């Protein structure tokens, strides 16, 4: 077959199942994908350039827009940089508050993914079910932080104010437990869903490692790597990273559902810690006129979409000399070149969706 017979197809950037503005340039031979070239940058906001212009406190409100579904993680990364640079230790209660909110955020993010993924595959109602539960989390965020999504709640050296109404979270966890069973009943026994995901988009271990894929996608390929196990905030917490061997889209879906349970466990432990430590005890850093000592600082965390990290080089001024974000989705988009090659067009959406790509994180 010569190249002239190939059909070039633009998937996106406005396609609803690309979760933002991802454009995939596919070359098709019949229905088979011969090559895939991702085109990104439609949502580029110059996050790294912006950092070099603004002081730390001016820049801080923008960081949770890198991934609007998991904003707390990026706030945490940026605060961690400042805290590391100025050697500020967090109190037990502040740590517990952060873990509680991070894990709630992870649940919210995974819930949205489950709904949106099922919608990609043509099932409309799960979207409403998962959004119903996610709404409870967002309501709680609104109560605590004043915002539903871009919370800006962690501040340098602590949190903006103390947390309250923990009963809401406990109540939510009870609701979620029963709802997860409902999701499993409605989704896991659906023959259409199973046919479209089982054995599709197989991601081999070495391909995943080579492509710097982290997070749920890597663990679903059988690698036990969860950066929470070595993170300072999660010290003293017990949980088991979900490692499964299936490597296909279905395994990645199952891994995310199982992670909901693990996150619930972590939240329960955080609530226990909150009950033990009632004093907030935080040493806040004065953000106005804040200068970091010259040097290089690095922080990383396991975000819902894989390893996220922040690197800052400071030359002693009130602005970073260079700031770099690492996000999980960026490498997942890069992986699509390999993963979609040789598959059929009607599987492309199922495979691309299963990697949980979000575009603001890619475009930065």
């Amino acid at each position, binding site marked *: 077959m010569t190249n002239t017979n190939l059909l070039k197809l633009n998937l996106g950037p406005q396609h609803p199942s690309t979760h933002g503005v991802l454009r995939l340039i596919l070359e098709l031979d019949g229905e088979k994908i011969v090559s895939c070239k991702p085109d*990104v940058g439609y949502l580029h906001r110059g996050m*790294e350039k912006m950092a070099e212009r603004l002081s730390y406190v001016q820049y801080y409100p923008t960081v949770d827009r890198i991934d609007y579904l998991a904003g707390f993680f990026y706030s945490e990364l940026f605060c961690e940089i400042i805290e590391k640079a100025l050697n500020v230790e967090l109190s037990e209660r502040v740590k517990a508050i952060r873990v509680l909110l991070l894990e709630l955020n992870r649940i919210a993010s995974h819930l949205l993914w489950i709904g949106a993924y099922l919608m990609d595959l043509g099932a409309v109602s799960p979207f409403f079910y998962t959004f119903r539960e996610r709404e409870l989390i967002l309501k709680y965020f609104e109560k605590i932080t004043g915002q539903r999504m871009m919370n800006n709640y962690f501040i340098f050296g602590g949190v903006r104010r103390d947390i309250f109404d923990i009963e809401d979270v406990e109540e939510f966890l009870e609701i979620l437990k029963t709802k997860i069973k409902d999701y499993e009943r409605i989704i896991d026994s659906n023959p259409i869903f199973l046919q479209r995901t089982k054995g599709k988009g197989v991601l081999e271990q070495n391909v995943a*490692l080579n492509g710097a894929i982290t997070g749920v996608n890597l663990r679903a390929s059988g690698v036990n790597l969860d950066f929470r196990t070595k993170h300072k905030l999660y010290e003293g917490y017990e949980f088991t990273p979900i490692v499964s061997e299936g490597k296909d889209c279905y395994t990645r879906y199952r891994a995310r559902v199982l992670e909901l349970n693990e996150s619930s466990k972590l939240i329960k432990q955080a609530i226990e810690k909150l009950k033990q430590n009632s004093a907030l005890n935080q040493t806040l850093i004065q953000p106005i006129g804040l200068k970091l000592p010259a040097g290089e600082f690095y922080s990383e965390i396991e975000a819902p979409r894989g390893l996220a990290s922040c690197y800052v080089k400071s030359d002693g001024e009130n602005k970073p000399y*260079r700031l770099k974000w690492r996000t999980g989705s960026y490498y997942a988009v*890069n*992986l699509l070149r390999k993963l979609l090659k040789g598959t059929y067009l009607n599987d492309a959406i199922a495979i691309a969706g299963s990697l949980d790509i979000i575009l603001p994180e890619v475009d930065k």
Partner: protein
Amino acid sequence: MNIIEFKNLFGESELFGEKIIMKSDIAKSLQFLKENYGYNILKEIIAIDNRDDIELSYRLYSPDDDEDVIITTFVKGEAESVSKIFDSAVADEKEIFDLFGIKFTCNDELERLYMPEGWKGHPLRKNYEENDERLKWND
């Protein structure tokens, strides 16, 4: 892996803080670390414009040892691609080409990533001037 051990293997390298500074042979040393010491994830490549030259830092990670190692090199205009060794480097190198203008040899996927086709200059360079006419639409 012990950094001293690495230094013994690659004589020309220099220890600086937690980084290993290499003068050349980036691809060869990365491949060596990957094959012999299990550093099989390239977490990211960080580029920094030091005004005189561009600093490239390769942050490698070994899942077995749970350890990072950073290999640093200084380049001007052109650098050796490691995309044949780590597939993720294709993405990093594309980004560095777009934002810093470093050309990676043997990476045939280099093109504008975030910036539109035909954009002048590379935004994260310290000598970047915002003189593109498209920025003046509001005047």
